[in-house]
């Protein structure tokens, strides 16, 4: 039987099992008695073993087999699921993944199993920590900060020889949520999805062209037909984009792994919660989110979260909570990373920014508390040492902010000293076809993604004031600096004979600013295509699109331009 035809199916399904294993391991560390989690791990390793055996991948079989045996000891022989078991299983899962990478690259396996199979087979739990004899109850009191990796109930269940079942038979298991493996589904290559999205985009551009032609022709029949086509295209676009959506679930195991590692390293006790795994995002956006989210989680664990003792002294539960949640908000997806740690103090952020010469005392006096928090997103705001001083924000936040803006999204920070901090990313659900505000600057038309536009304003001259050498205007009690897009593009400054200055408000370098343009031309649905070289090398250009009348328009990356 020729097995090579099954290889890619093996790889993709084996990865699903590995992901389930990783997630379940991390989950079980919080609730080590969870029988359905234990069953899931056993089954995962068992299935991997069977699949790998069919493919005759002996190395993978061996590792999976040992993992299965270890879980059998946990399931049936009273071995406690402690952090030692968790570590070994995660190590096994990583090893199998590396072996699969070798297989995928069609090369001789260069990842030896090493001594891991032996360590899996020979695992014995560490002796229970010495406890006061008079204290038989497990330490559950918040007032007694236990080490983060304490083995829950390790003291109450003696380590047993694998062959001697000393615990009662397993209690009936809660049925696990059915993992739907629909027989009617097909797997397609992602390039095909990209191609479909591309064709749909071209069709939308073409529809805009027809609309534009009919503006001259004014044919009711043509108008009706184009209107109908537009409706169908919208439906097609929605469907194509839906196909490209992947659940957030697809990337969460990486976060669980990294938070677990960070907490372990810093010795902090915390509970990591993930909400909204089922929310779908375009797969390219999803991939670009991994690093920014990891940055924010690292900040939350390393800097936002206090030590247990400090928390208890402040009257908080010893165990902190870091939460990653994803939610739909109309056509956007909100990703928030929040913690119940020490929070950020705006005054200290300001003092620090002044000390580093990032802002002048004059500018500082104009900052609202909200703006002060956004100072963390200015490049150069934080160094590792400084981070601790200003209660710990800033590592890579400028990088986070930049990559979110590249995706057409925005970042907001809220924080309350002593209560915690929340970072919110607002992202478009899909890319390629976006809604953009089209603006005119001199002879040039530019497009700004509406996700980057907080609002548009038409100012009268008297609403503008000068602070130092800068023009500012007041928006909701906040003084916003005014910048000229013409100037940023190297064009002559606009004149506003009727005394009305059009502008849009956006976020740049962590602050809200007003961007003055010659004219606001309204919102358009654009199919954005990447620019080729050498245009792609120019700063501030995010891609190109064709308007209905055939005119070319560039997508402006405003933050990059200023």
């Amino acid at each position: 039987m020729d097995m090579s035809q099954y290889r890619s199916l093996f790889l993709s399904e084996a990865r699903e099992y590995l992901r389930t294993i990783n997630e379940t391991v991390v989950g079980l560390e919080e609730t080590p008695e969870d029988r359905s989690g234990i069953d899931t791990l056993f089954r995962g390793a068992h299935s991997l073993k069977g699949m790998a055996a069919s493919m005759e991948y002996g190395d993978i079989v061996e590792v999976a087999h040992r993992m299965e045996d270890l879980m059998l000891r946990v399931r049936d022989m009273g071995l406690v699921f402690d952090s030692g078991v968790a570590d070994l299983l995660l190590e096994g899962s990583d090893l199998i993944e590396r072996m699969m990478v070798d297989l995928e690259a069609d090369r001789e396996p260069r990842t030896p199993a090493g001594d891991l199979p032996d360590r899996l087979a020979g695992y014995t739990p560490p002796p229970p920590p010495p406890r006061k004899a008079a204290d038989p109850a497990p330490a559950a009191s918040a007032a007694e900060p236990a080490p983060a990796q304490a083995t829950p109930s390790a003291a109450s269940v003696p380590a047993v020889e694998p062959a001697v079942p000393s615990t009662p038979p397993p209690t009936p298991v809660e049925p696990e949520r059915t993992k739907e493996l629909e027989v009617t589904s097909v797997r397609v290559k992602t390039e095909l999805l990209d191609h479909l999205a591309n064709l749909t985009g071209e069709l939308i551009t073409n529809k805009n062209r027809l609309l534009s032609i009919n503006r001259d022709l004014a044919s009711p029949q043509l108008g009706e037909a184009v209107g109908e086509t537009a409706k169908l295209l919208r439906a097609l676009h929605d469907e194509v984009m839906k196909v490209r959506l992947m659940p957030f679930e697809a990337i969460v195991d990486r976060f669980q792994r990294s938070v677990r590692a960070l907490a372990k390293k810093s010795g902090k006790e915390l509970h990591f919660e993930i909400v909204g795994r089922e929310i779908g995002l375009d797969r390219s956006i999803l991939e670009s989110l991994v690093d920014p989210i990891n940055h924010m989680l690292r900040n939350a664990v390393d800097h936002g979260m206090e030590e247990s003792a400090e928390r208890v002294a402040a009257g908080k539960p010893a165990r902190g909570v870091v939460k990653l949640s994803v939610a739909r908000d109309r056509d956007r997806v909100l990703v928030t990373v929040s913690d119940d740690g020490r929070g950020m103090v705006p005054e200290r952020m300001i003092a620090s920014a002044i000390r580093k010469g990032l802002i002048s005392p004059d500018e500082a006096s104009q900052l609202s508390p909200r703006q002060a928090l956004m100072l963390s997103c200015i490049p150069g705001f934080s160094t590792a040492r400084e981070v601790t001083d200003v209660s710990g924000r800033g590592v890579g936040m400028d990088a986070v902010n930049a990559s979110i803006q590249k995706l057409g999204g925005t970042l907001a920070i809220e924080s309350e000293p002593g209560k915690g901090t929340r970072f919110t990313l607002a992202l478009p659900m899909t890319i390629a076809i976006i809604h953009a505000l089209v603006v005119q600057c001199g002879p040039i038309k530019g497009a700004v993604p509406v996700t980057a536009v907080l609002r548009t304003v038409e100012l009268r001259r008297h609403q503008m004031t000068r602070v130092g050498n800068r023009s500012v205007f007041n928006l909701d009690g906040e003084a916003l600096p005014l910048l000229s897009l013409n100037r940023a593009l190297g064009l002559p400054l606009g004149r506003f004979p009727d005394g009305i200055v059009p502008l849009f408000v956006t976020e740049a370098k962590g602050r809200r600013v007003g961007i003055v343009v010659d004219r606001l031309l309204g919102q358009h649905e654009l199919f954005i295509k990447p620019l080729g070289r050498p245009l792609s090398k120019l700063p501030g250009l995010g891609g190109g699109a064709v308007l209905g009348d055939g005119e070319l328009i560039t997508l402006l990356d405003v933050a990059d331009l200023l």
Partner: protein
Amino acid sequence: MATTVMVVDDSLFMRKMLRDLLEEQGYQVIAEAADGNEAVARFREKAPELVTLDIVMPNKNGLEALGEIMALDPAARVVMCSAVGQESMAQEASLAGAKAFILKPFNPEHVVQVLRDVCGG
């Protein structure tokens, strides 16, 4: 008429392999199921002449599903399939009415032989 078969396994990979193998041998795979619950439901729905049933599966394992299938049709022809380590289940399955036990990884000739025996007898 080709013998109709239902393939039950929680792994898509395993189902695909077995389906290909069976179809090559002239069987007609009329249903697949990924866990015990689905297996019982599909059995009720499609009444396949032959069932290959994995043991280690989520929600309802193969032995539980076997019991329910045998209750639905005491003449059902069910062949249990499982990987190394579950041999102890073989006897239990046979007592519960399974006609045969196939060990994974599948040896095509062996699978064909066992199924032929089960269908002939």
